[in-house]
């Protein structure tokens, strides 16, 4: 394990131990600086990531567990059929303010369909969804315009909320920076890499400051650093009181979420 791997493992440990996002970022940056300036094997300098994270937690403490608020999204009895095939059967999910919910399941089990039903983009054959507050949605792919610049996407989304161009651009660039992306360049969306394009997609969905954020596998094409930044951002948004639903097939992230809906069992009538 090289220094970068050690730092990533250390950052993940801090997250798992619920160290505040900004404090964790600061501690990781300090450790990185120490390693860069002083050199040496992080295992010898700091010890195992788990041990050092435990020491840090003792020293600076943790954030209190997320204070969950009122229900923001309540989906009940969602059933969806395509022809004779039942994709979703009686699936239900409740997410409160300050919670992250993960929708998991095998390929083709209806994760994206469930999210699109929650967003009101697809009608179910049965069931209903109640949303409190404003909805934001990040599709798995598409959802951007090939021949527009990132700034123009921000202006377009901002205008929907009546936000003027300047503030919309600034808000978009600031949200992009949270994902480790500098969105100021004059690069058309079609020339962005897959991961960067997904960051644009994600930035657009958070721009309107939604109370309920629905993300369909938002990390497609992300490198490891971007992936960490994404979860930093999601945890920050959760701590601000947003309700977040993430479709994922990466089960190693489930320890960071508060609610899990497994649609493999939901197809058979199970619930979260």
């Amino acid at each position: 394990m090289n220094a970068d791997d050690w730092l990533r493992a250390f950052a993940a440990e801090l997250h798992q131990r619920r160290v505040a996002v900004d404090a964790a970022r600061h501690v990781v940056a300090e450790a990185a600086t120490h390693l860069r300036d002083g050199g040496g094997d992080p295992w010898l300098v700091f010890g195992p990531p788990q041990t050092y994270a435990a020491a840090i937690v003792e020293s600076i403490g943790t954030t209190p567990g997320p204070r969950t608020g009122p229900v923001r999204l309540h989906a009940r009895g969602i059933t969806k059929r395509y022809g004779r095939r039942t994709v979703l059967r009686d699936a239900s999910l409740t997410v409160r303010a300050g919670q992250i919910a993960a929708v998991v399941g095998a390929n083709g089990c209806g994760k994206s369909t469930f999210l699109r039903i929650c967003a009101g983009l697809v009608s179910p054959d049965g069931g209903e969804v109640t949303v409190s507050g404003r909805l934001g949605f990040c599709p798995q792919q598409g959802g951007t315009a090939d021949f527009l610049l990132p700034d123009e996407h921000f202006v377009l989304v901002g205008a929907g909320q009546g936000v003027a161009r300047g503030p919309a651009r600034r808000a978009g660039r600031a949200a992009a920076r949270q994902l480790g992306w500098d969105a100021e360049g004059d690069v058309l969306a079609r020339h962005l890499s897959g991961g960067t394009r997904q960051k644009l997609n994600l930035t657009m969905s958070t721009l309107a400051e939604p109370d309920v954020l629905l993300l369909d596998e938002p990390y497609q094409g992300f490198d490891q650093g971007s992936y960490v930044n994404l979860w930093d951002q999601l945890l920050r948004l959760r701590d601000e009181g947003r309700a977040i639903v993430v479709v994922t097939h990466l089960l190693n992230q489930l320890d960071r979420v508060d609610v899990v809906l497994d649609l493999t069992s939901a197809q058979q009538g199970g619930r979260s």
Partner: protein
Amino acid sequence: MNRLFTVAEMTLRELARRRGVLLLLLLMPLTFWLIRRDAYVGQSIRALLLGISWAVSTAALFATSAARELEPRLRLAGYRPHHLYIGRMLGLWGLGLAISVPFFLLTVFDAANLRYAGIAVAMLCCVAVAAPFGMLIGALLPRELEGTLLLLTVVAMQMLLDPADAGAKLTPFWSSREIATWAVDHTDDGYLTRGIMHGVVVTGLLIVTVAAVFAVRLRRRRHLHHVPLV
């Protein structure tokens, strides 16, 4: 109004950056005109009008198809369906007018003894009808290939049908042909009146149909209930 103009502006920006498409949009009417250039002047102008109609319809079809994935999220971002389809239509009308101007000047310099105002009105009719027509096909047919084939069928029908035939009046671009006859052959004003009436009615019908299709596609689904924040 800001939402409408933002959508219109972004439509124009997207199309303006597709230089290959712009070139083909100009090439299409020019080719139609050149092929008929040696024949009777009325034929070249009618072919030019048909080329403009086809070019703008095709641009509208592709712009609508390209926005299919983006529009639902813009709807969630606060846009109403009419902001999206009227905004896009305004952008396409702007594009259509921009590509019509050089062709209007071409007819002014190339052919004498025409009613030029009539040529301008015929071009306006082409652009007015073509934008919602292409949008309607793009909204109804999810795949571009199917839309393009349907557009090709309609334009070919327009080209082959005898304009005096009653069925020809059911084709979307009959108005420009009628007005062009008035402008080129100096026929009576009935041609101009019928042409303008046809153009206005067809444009109106197409806009209403586009509005209905967008309203259905981007409707608020009945299963989704919004409650105020507590």
